[in-house]
């Protein structure tokens, strides 16, 4: 710092060991090499350790019969490791989906109650939030599971609050339910079509409203369109069985297409995808004046995308197994859907089932007689719902507070009622602020379901633990866990980002 700086000639480059750019890259490459070195050492010692224990790193356990029993799920005695993990995935998604719905409803109610001018409502919701979010979730889940365990035991007679309709016992909470039957998917096609029709009807009526200014009953119209399709579909569903031909055809197509052709198509798709992404990226950088200078970061991204596309294309040709797998998977998938559809197949769509006690301590099997919520499910579900709702409530409260006060005042000045004000002015604007953190909370909820392992709920982590206890495939199972949760995070954040872009204000 104390030296005087000699005046330099213009454009004189410093020597290599003083050139900041060179030094920065040298440091980065050195760190990268160091990390790769550490990684290689770690992997080699892992291999040595595994060998010393007589284990080998293989994925065989995914296809072998694991010989484990799961407490609940679509296959409690899975025939392969992969199926066991899929059972865990489905169980995890089940509790996540129901938890997200319940936590959102509860959280929004509590969040609005936090801002209520009614002293009692306000204080009660504050107490709820401050109590729930300051206690570890795991403890709450364990507690609800313990509460469930203290419910009365299931007897053949007189153990439900409403005999034959509702049971609350330590073997499960059971309620009546509708179960899909053989014609369900054919009807479901109509329901999907109804949803699309409802959307079009809604847009059409809104257009009418905007053009004429008269009440156009948009919600009513779309509801009617939806119901129309659902009711017609209930009787006309055999027609949708024609979908079976489409699926059958696709299945045949993937079963008989030559491997080389498929490899070629996939390779072209990979390179094309990379090219499309690069083009879109360049377009997004292009200003009206032309292309700005690319930073090293941009060049890095473009290079990475291009390289990934080319590498993927080469991999498709070098490893035919991948393409074979894709072919076989798609063939099986469409075969499966083909089996759900049959032109002019008649049958029931839904069947209503009431809970039935088979013998003391046992409900009749799942899928026919009522929906039973097991103890572990109850513990995880109540735990994550109450916990996440407390955080959602704070987000909702913050979002509503963040809406400019002038909006409220303007709404009141227009003569809107409190409820109208909330519904039409405040909430839609608060929604934009609420959405990103809300997505985060959903993601947290999804990750928190992994605590089900503590009460024996058979979700991905618990199933994985049972699997590696049985097979010794610890590293593989942990890789599967991480991959699965990363996938869930990526999908969820992609949805939230997409929706966020849609509802974001267009800045002028």
């Amino acid at each position, binding site marked *: 710092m104390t030296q005087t700086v000699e005046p330099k000639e213009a454009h004189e480059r410093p020597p290599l060991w003083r050139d900041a750019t060179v030094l920065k890259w040298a440091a980065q490459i050195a760190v990268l090499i160091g990390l790769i070195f550490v990684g290689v050492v770690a992997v080699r010692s892992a291999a040595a350790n595994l060998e010393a224990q007589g284990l080998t790193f293989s994925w065989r356990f995914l296809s072998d019969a694991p010989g484990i029993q799961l407490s609940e799920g679509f296959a409690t005695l899975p025939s392969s490791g992969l199926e066991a993990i899929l059972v865990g995935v489905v169980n995890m998604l089940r509790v996540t989906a129901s938890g997200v719905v319940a936590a959102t409803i509860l959280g929004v109610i509590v969040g609005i109650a936090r801002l209520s001018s*009614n002293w009692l409502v306000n204080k009660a919701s504050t107490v709820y939030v*401050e109590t729930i979010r300051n206690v570890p979730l795991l403890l709450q889940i364990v507690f609800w599971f313990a509460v469930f365990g203290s419910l009365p035991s299931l007897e053949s007679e007189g153990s439900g609050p409403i005999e034959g309709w509702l049971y609350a016992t330590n073997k499960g909470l059971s309620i009546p339910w509708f179960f899909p039957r053989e014609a369900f998917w054919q009807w479901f096609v109509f329901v999907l079509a109804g949803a699309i029709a409802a959307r079009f009807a809604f847009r059409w009526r809104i257009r009418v409203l905007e053009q004429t200014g008269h009440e156009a009953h948009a919600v009513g119209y779309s509801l009617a369109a939806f119901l129309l399709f659902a009711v017609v579909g209930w009787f006309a569903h055999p027609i949708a069985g024609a979908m079976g031909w489409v699926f059958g055809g696709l299945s045949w197509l993937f079963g008989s297409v030559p491997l080389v052709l498929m490899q070629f198509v996939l390779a072209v798709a990979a390179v094309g995808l990379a090219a499309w992404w690069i083009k879109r990226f360049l377009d997004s950088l292009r200003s009206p004046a032309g292309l700005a200078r690319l930073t090293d970061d941009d060049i*890095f991204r473009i290079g990475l995308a291009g390289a990934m596309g080319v590498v993927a294309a080469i991999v498709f040709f070098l490893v035919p197994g991948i393409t074979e797998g894709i072919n076989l998977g798609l063939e099986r998938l469409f075969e499966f859907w083909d089996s759900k559809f049959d032109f002019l197949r008649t049958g029931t769509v839904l069947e209503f089932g009431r809970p039935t006690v088979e013998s003391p301590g046992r409900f009749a099997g799942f899928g026919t007689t009522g929906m039973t919520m097991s103890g572990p499910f109850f513990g995880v579900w109540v735990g994550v719902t109450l916990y996440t709702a407390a955080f959602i409530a704070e987000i909702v409260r913050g979002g509503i507070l963040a809406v400019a006060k002038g909006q409220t005042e303007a709404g009141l000045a227009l003569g809107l009622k409190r409820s109208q004000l909330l519904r039409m002015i405040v909430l839609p604007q608060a929604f934009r602020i609420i959405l990103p953190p809300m997505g985060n909370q959903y993601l947290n909820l999804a990750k928190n379901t992994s605590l089900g392992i503590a009460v024996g709920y058979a979700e991905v982590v618990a199933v994985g633990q049972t699997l590696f206890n049985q097979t010794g495939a610890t590293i593989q199972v942990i890789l599967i866990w991480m991959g699965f949760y990363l996938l869930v995070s*990526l999908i969820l954040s992609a949805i939230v980002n997409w929706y966020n872009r849609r509802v974001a204000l267009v800045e002028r």
Partner: protein
Amino acid sequence: MTEPFVNEISESEVAPDKPSAGAIRWARENLFSTFFNSVLSLLMLALIVVFVRGLLSYVFAEERLWNVIPRNMKLYWTEAYPVAEMTRTWVSLGIVLVLAGLSLAIWKVGGKTAPRQFGRTLTSIGITGLVVALLADAPSGIRVGAAAVGAVLFLAGQAVRMMAGERFTEETIHIRSVLLGILLIIGVIVWILPIETGTKTSLTIQGVLLIVSYLLGGVVLRVVSEGLARGVLVGLWLLSLPVVYLVVQRAPVTAGVPVMSVFLPSAVAFIVLGGGLLWWMSSGKAGEGGRLAAGVVVIAALGCWLVSMPMLVRFLLLALATFALAAPTFGGTGKAQKNIVIAWSVAVLITAYFMVMMQAETGLVGLQGEFIGGLNLTFLLAVSGLVISFPIGIMLALGRTSSMPIFRLLSTGYIETVRGVPLITVLFFGNLVINRFLPREVELDNIVKAIVAIALFSAAYLAENVRGGLQSIPKGQYEAAKAMGLSTVQMTVFITLPQALRSVIPAIVGQVISLFKDTSLVAIIGLADFLRVARDIVPNQPASLGSLQESLLFAMVIYWIFTFNVSRASLRLERKLGVGER
């Protein structure tokens, strides 16, 4: 799982006090302002009565085994720690309380509160007692007791309001005298309760220690400057962690450790040679030679893990590498050079001392498994996880905001991967897999593995918080630092990082709270932390069968007390720092 939350200041806490009105008018304004509001109030009232009554009759039901909790207090706090050595845990607690007392005094925590607020608090506690007495389905003894305490507190609250008279809303009551009062009441209760005399005495000593160290803190402030006292205290807090767990509680026996033949010579050699090297490197004349030397030291520090040598040398080389990298930044004048060498000597001595303690066998007898458990373990996990995750998290945040693409990519990849997976998978990774990736002679303790996993997990979240702070710093700060001729490292250490850290204190406190709650997950991988004691160990004793819910509720209350108070403290800190108002 780890969702830091930020408390917002509610309006009632900021708004000026309204003139007090009669209870009827208050009720009309706040509960029965409109028809809808009245209906809502009545419904809510009914709901609250049902809920509170249900809760109370649950708590006071005949079959509740609350006596299990006081009987097992030792298990909750320390789990399997040998009873004969319990003095050691009391000493640990004493160390923490002395530091806490000093900190309270030196940071001047507390301040004053208004009689209005104080009276209101007393009154509401009193009303709570009366409600319990009224609604509880409990033995009449408890009801009468609750009613008596409630009535006394209620009257006391009203008396405070009366006595304050004119100075009703002025802040005249010292919070520290209120705390002292609470401490005294607790002291009296401790002596009434049917617990062992030894425990009573120990608790009393702890209380006295707290008060004495608080008073001592006031004296210290008069002698030395505030900044020095705070700096020393932060150092003592950091040291207290290994002292409490490695030295006091582990009771090491140094007989088998080659202190004289290995540790002392290497420590002296490192102090002399490393000190000389650092003196030269920090002189500002080293130039490229210094950079080269730092590079050599870094390579040596990493390479020494591949060849077999004493652990102490490996750690000291790592420390030397850190110092060597930092030396040019902090060096310059003769005084700075001297400071660096002194800091290095102290660091070497501390490292060597704790390495000796780690290598020594534990002197505890009658151990089964780990010697740390219960709340003791929960605190160890939370605090050490936090301390270790701090440097990692800051490095990751700097990496993610760096202009160098490879560092950015690596940091981003790490942060997003860890944030995308649940903690329990990271804990399983730490517990079952880390050992497989390490050389075979290294065998990590279960607690150490859990700490590593928690620290690695929490570092990713911390990095995101710090990144938020770094991005909130105005560009002018960077430009001004550059214009002053500071190097990038100097700019980061002296200008941007301190500002970034201060602006994200609330977020970091939120994360500390979730870290504390998240430590309960180690119960799943089999460590005997507080949750596991409350869930498995206590209720499974033959004498306490059927007490699972009571035990879990007790654990909830304890966790709640800690997290709630930390979040309240963070609110106050936030207001004091004026975050968001600058």
